[in-house]
């Protein structure tokens, strides 16, 4: 509730949700601010995908950053509170499994190894438990907050597990994970590609083998774009409240966001959406604006 906000100025555009998508929205916030006259009033926060949807349902948020599609119950809740939304794909991400650069022995991990490492109650606590040829040194795990979008996708969709072991260092803030892994020789963890891309010098991405015989694939713009970085690739979204599109400041910002989404995604270290997805975005945008074709569509 922001009943008394109107006092000094109009209501700002509030973006909240996934920490994975946060860098893209941050880039959009900055680029848009620089591209227009005056200072548009945009706020970008992150509280995880679930947190974003939760706050959306409370009416606190205009645009939700989401690193996974909304769950049926989230859809339900949003609809129940009368806040219809439109979904846009803003980037592709490959969840990157990273280790400390001092760790040279882990040349690749299979999905099976990942599963045995992260499964609930896993007994793996040193590297030789994963592969006997690796040294007997302790492992420490850094993972996103338990029901963040990244966690959800990695654990449930990619590895097909119900949950994850508990003796990990969890954080809703991926930067914390990066710092943790960069500072800990025995560390392994996972997070969005952008955080790896921004910290290539401090981390080493582990190539992933879909199964024991497959070729190891490293996360990169190409492998994510062409889908070969599987099963850890996924699309990233923003969910925009339809009612908020009636406010010109929101509509303008979303339009700018989607028109420049390719650049923004890359600037943030992700892979841009495909041509088709971008076209679909602009369609959705003009629908949400009430049938008027978006100006960019004409170009």
């Amino acid at each position, binding site marked *: 509730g922001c009943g008394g906000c109107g006092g000094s100025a109009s209501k700002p555009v509030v973006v909240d949700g996934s920490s994975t998508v946060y860098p893209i929205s941050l880039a959009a916030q900055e680029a848009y*601010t620089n591209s227009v006259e005056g200072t548009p009033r945009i706020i970008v926060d992150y509280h995880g995908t679930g947190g974003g949807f939760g706050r959306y349902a409370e009416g606190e948020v205009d645009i939700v950053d989401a690193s996974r599609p909304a769950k049926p119950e989230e859809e339900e809740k949003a609809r129940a509170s009368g806040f219809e939304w439109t979904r846009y794909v803003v980037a592709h991400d490959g969840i990157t499994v990273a280790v400390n650069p001092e760790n040279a022995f882990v040349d690749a991990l299979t999905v099976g190894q990942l599963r045995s490492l992260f499964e609930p109650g896993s007994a793996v606590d040193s590297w030789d438990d994963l592969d006997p040829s690796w040294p007997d040194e302790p492992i420490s795990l850094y993972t996103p907050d338990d029901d963040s979008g990244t966690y959800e996708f990695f654990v449930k969709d990619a590895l097909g597990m119900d949950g994850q072991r508990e003796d990990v260092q969890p954080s809703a*803030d991926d*930067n914390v994970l990066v710092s943790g892994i960069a500072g800990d020789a025995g560390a392994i963890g996972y997070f969005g590609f952008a955080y790896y891309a921004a910290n290539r010098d401090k981390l080493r991405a582990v190539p992933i083998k879909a199964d024991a015989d497959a070729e190891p694939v490293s996360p990169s713009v190409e492998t994510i774009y062409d889908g070969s970085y599987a099963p850890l690739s996924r699309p990233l979204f923003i969910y925009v409240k339809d009612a908020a599109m009636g406010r010109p400041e929101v509509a303008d910002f979303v339009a700018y966001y989607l028109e420049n989404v390719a650049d923004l995604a890359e600037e943030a270290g992700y892979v841009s959406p495909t041509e088709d997805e971008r076209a679909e975005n602009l369609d959705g945008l003009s629908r949400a604006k009430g049938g008027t074709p978006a100006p960019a569509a004409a170009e």
Partner: protein
Amino acid sequence: MYRPRRARRRAFGALFAGLCLAATLSGVVVLVVLLGSVLAKALALEPNPPWYALGEQARELSSFLGRIATATNSPNPDLAGFKAGIVGSLWLLLLVAMIAIPVGVGAGLYLEEYAPPGRLRRTIQTNIANLAGVPSIVYGILGLVAFSRAFGFEAVALGKMLWAGALTLSLLVLPIVVITTQEALRAVPSSLRQAALALGATRWQVIRDHVLPSALPGILTGTILALSRAIGETAPLLMVGAANSILYPPAGPSDYYTALPVEIYNFATLPREEFRSVAAGGILILLAILMSMNAVAISLRTPTGRVLAGRAIAQLGRIGWTAGRAVRPSGRRPSPALDPAGGGPASDASPENQARGAEPR
């Protein structure tokens, strides 16, 4: 019968004294190391001139600080800065001062000057002492429920407005303001109160005209220190919704906001080394604000500071006095005999005369 073992006792003494000195200095050394490492980190951003090129270093530092003080948040560390946070923190400072000082001084006045000794007063007093020890995060929780959500009354909920942060911080520093006010009031000699009472003054007249002006430098010292605590707080602001990224400074107390220490926290947790330097620069700015507040507070403790503060207060008092007096016609121009015969400094006398001259006849 006596074996005083003087040499041994003396050696012990010297050893112990050395230990005590070392302990004290270790605190100071730590302080220097802390500040030094922050400074070094802040300077690390730019291509480094040699450390002995002090002038160049200083120039670089000031241009760096100037840049981050005027730039807003950005994913690019070369462009990132704290403008929104600095303005937000200054807003918080202003609002907290406006809320906590009158309420805190009022409460201190009540407890010291009005409250009859007894259970009520003892209870409030104990309560304040305990409040001073409540962790700031608990105030954050209170602010979240009481101000941000207004116990669920949507209409008055403050959400993520500056007001919510300011009210929370005000409650946080209130005990400090009350306690220092009480101490300052206690330091006013009772002879002053008695002198005034014996002239047939009411309690309030005594307080307004004598006790408060005498205590004011002490009260100011305490409140400035309290405010400097407020400006450095982070945890409660995270609870009451200071934003992660906001590129425009708040336009007013009903706006969304972020604060300098919250931005520092954000930058400090960003992984890229360059953001650490930005955070260090933010810390330097925060420390600079704090140190200057402390300097004012300390200078108020010195005799000169007291005199200056006293002067300023006297001026304010006269303005108030004139306002109070304007409702009743009285007085007339001063007779020449009463003008200072070259004795008193003109600054002391003239406002008094002007004030009197300006009165309705």
